[in-house]
């Protein structure tokens, strides 16, 4: 998996470094050095013509950026919290308790772990987006706060299980995570 990610990133960088001459009628596939590219641009006295370059070298958004991975972690955490809620064992049904407890426990544990990973990556990547001067109702600030509360709720729910109160903590965490994600959608 790591190799796949690395190879995709390398391919993305290779595309980004393609410095073919934009808008050149007789272009036949040769490449320019970065210094040549700058030299040509400096001789261009008109308005910036990078849009022509973009047409010939269309931008392809990478699926594996740090920002996107942060998003995948948060959404996956929410989905797994939903799975945990949906597979909560019903104490009235003894057979179901045995089969569901594994899924319920595993999904809840994974939701807590992914939530923690998402919160950590969010702090690392977006610390500069959090600005308390904008007030707590600022969308980035609320997103951070709710993400942290959601993760804390998931962790508390897992650690308190099978006490009855753990369900409420898990659900509160799920709601907080859901709202936090919607705010940044």
């Amino acid at each position, binding site marked *: 998996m790591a190799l796949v990610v690395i190879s995709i990133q390398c391919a993305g960088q290779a595309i980004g470094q393609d410095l073919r001459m934009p808008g050149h009628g007789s272009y036949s596939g040769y490449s320019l050095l970065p210094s040549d590219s700058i030299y040509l641009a400096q001789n261009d006295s008109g308005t910036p013509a990078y849009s022509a370059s973009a047409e010939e070298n269309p*931008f392809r958004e990478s699926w594996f950026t740090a920002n996107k991975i942060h998003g995948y972690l948060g959404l996956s955490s929410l989905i797994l919290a939903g799975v945990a809620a949906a597979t909560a064992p019903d104490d009235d049904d003894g057979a179901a308790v045995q089969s569901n407890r594994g899924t319920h426990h595993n999904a809840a544990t994974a939701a807590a772990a992914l939530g923690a990973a998402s919160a950590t990556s969010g702090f690392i990547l977006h610390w500069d987006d959090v600005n308390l001067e904008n007030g707590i109702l600022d969308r980035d600030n609320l997103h951070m706060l709710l993400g942290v509360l959601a993760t804390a709720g998931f962790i508390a729910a897992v650690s308190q299980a099978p006490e009855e109160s753990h369900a409420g903590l898990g659900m509160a965490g799920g709601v907080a995570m859901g709202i936090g994600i919607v705010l940044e959608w």
Partner: protein
Amino acid sequence: MLSILIAVAFASSALAGDLFPRFKGVAPVNNAKYESECGSCHFAYQPGLLPSRSWRKLMEPRELEDHFGDNAEMEESERIAILDFLISHAAETSWYKRSTKINRSVHKGQTPLRITETRYIKRKHEEIPRKMTLDNPKVRSLSYCNNCHMRAADGVYDDDTVRIPNFPAWDD
């Protein structure tokens, strides 16, 4: 493990906007008249990048006579139609995140005429070295949003879609 993979697959599809429309940037332009009239000379800036009072000021006939050094006068009916579009989609009317942040960053007494004068846009670009923007012959000004923001036309201005000309190894 399987459920994690399924969750990630679902999350990636959702994040791509395939499943649910996203509201993280600014609302894309959906007005043919605005795109043809204004977009023929410069990037068709989304109305959500400025509050309505800024668009009102910018679209005054006198302002259009000297529109950042160019004459951008137009038929009165077209001016009114475009102004209506700009006002009805201005920053304070939008749920899109960057529009709300831009609007909050402009003091009530201010009427910025340049998007690059708003506090939010200034703050988002202040750490980018001058050599990558103003001194970069393929950028020259922060006004040319789409020179670096590859999905600017879609209203997407996040870090993942930035590619600074002459600086392929740029990183946030």
